[in-house]
């Protein structure tokens, strides 16, 4: 799967979509691929304050748990409840399976473009 050009990516493999002043966050195809079949996600609660570089939640595979690092600081306005019941959505279409929507974004880590991210992933695999 090619990574959508309109998205920005973090080095910890989250993707970010700008939606006006708000941002939507999910995890990249490379991330879901390397995590394997996901069986559960822990999401923050609406109104939680996120801090850039800190975990906003985690995803569980059968034998591993990985934190989802927030690329931004801000306030959670919405969470994708659907993921709680069917985490497999993340494996099926990672760019459709968003995790959280965040508003009044304070700071953002410097994110990569799709091409830069592809490069970055290639380096990591090498």
């Amino acid at each position, binding site marked *: 799967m090619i990574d959508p050009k309109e998205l920005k990516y973090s080095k910890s493999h989250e993707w970010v979509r700008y939606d006006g002043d708000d941002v939507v966050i999910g995890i990249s195809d490379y991330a879901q691929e390397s995590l394997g079949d996901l*069986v*559960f996600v822990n999401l923050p609660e609406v109104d939680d304050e996120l801090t850039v570089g800190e975990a906003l939640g985690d995803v*569980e*595979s*059968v*034998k591993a748990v990985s934190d989802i690092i927030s690329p931004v600081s801000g306030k959670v306005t919405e969470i994708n409840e659907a993921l709680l019941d069917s985490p*497999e959505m993340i494996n099926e279409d990672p760019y459709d399976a968003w995790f959280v929507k965040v508003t009044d974004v304070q700071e953002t880590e410097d994110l990569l473009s799709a091409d830069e991210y592809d490069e970055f992933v290639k380096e990591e695999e090498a």
Partner: protein
Amino acid sequence: MKLIFERSVPGRGQDIFPECDVDIRLPETPLREEAPKLPEISENEMGRHYTQLAKEARGVNDGFYPLGSCTMKHNPRINEAMASLPGFTNVHPLQPADTVKGCTEAIDTLRNILCEITGMDDMTFQPAAGAHGEFTGLLLIKAYHKSRGDEGRTEIIVPDSAHGTNPASAAMAGYKVVEIKSNDHGTIDMDDLKAHLGPQTAGLMLTNPNTVGLFDENIMEITRLVHEAGGLCYYDGANLNAVIGMVRPGDIGFDVIHLNLHKTFSTPHGGGGPGSGPCGCKDFLAKFLPGKRVIDGEYTQAPESIGCVTGFYGNFLVMVRALTYLLFNGSDGVPELAKNAVLNANYMQEKLKDLYPVAYDTTCMHEFVMSLESIHKEKNVSALDVAKALLDFGIHPPTMYFPLIVDEALMVEPTETESREVLDNAIAAFRAIYKKIIESPESVAASPVTTPIKRLDEVGAARHPILKYDFSGEKAE
């Protein structure tokens, strides 16, 4: 195979209880609407059901069980005989102290022996399992620092090779867990340790030999540094079988320890319990020990006790088994356990390492770790595949994917109660599997083929958990 509920037929059952010899009287409170859907089944049917289940379970008595870090040694029959004596099984925990002299003697005798073996001064038997003992030991450390007003010590140092229970127990005890790196010998990176020691250090949790089966040769230095920093040293007894009678944790700088009676001291694992995780300590911590014990005919509790971690005195009948085992082996037999556990592990390591690269090519203790990383890369056969393939040889798989610091790890612990022939057969099996890996990797990935059930869908189980039987499927009677 059927669930017991699927064998149940309404109206059937077994006659256990007598008629009531007094007037029937129920409390005048709300009662349950409908009876629980428990099985209604004859003794014969039930017996066969469980015999069937037993056939689909696997114990040490079924064959070689080299499960790393679990010490699956033989469980002596005499232990069971002693633990089922009516003089023990029919004693109420709240009987007057002078009517339980035998129980208290058994406990005191076991305490004496275990303190002698570990070099500790006192011990509580309240913890019901190893992890429970860890939690207890950390509370002793916490109580100690608190009693000295030294509340700034908020960190417990744990090596990255540690059992998951170590950090989990530390967190349960309210500590921040600081993970330190292992060096390329698989033991503690001294610089990283020094870097993390300080006035915030409450203690260090260490398994020695560690989880890759290596004895940390810097141990004296390590415990000295921790003490200098004002911290205490916790010994995870999970691997005591490797050094029992040869090294005493109390002599090499450890202040607190837990043991696993169900590993080192031959009490059965019972499919996951009951175990027993006694927690031993040096004199200066004894006043914090939990639980009550009989001293001079009186039930007493340590003056500054942390409280209790179980309701009574711990898993007493498990303690009886361990005591029996220790009286049998005796002070002369105990060191032989370590010697032969270590011999058997090195014997297997030596005879396999040409095909299966060991993570650390040196003399191991009671267990060793192979890394199938290269095999995985080249043949796409994983540690899991090899483990499952062993099932087809009637061998219980080694521990997989642990320790986490080794990729594609298989951890093998033969124990001292296995004979040379058993080891030789296992070695032959490993080598045969390697041959298959070279010739037809995919066939290995397809194993096991001889087990009653094939590889199970763990993902489905976790995504949409079914955790109890669904009676709705049954047609209403």
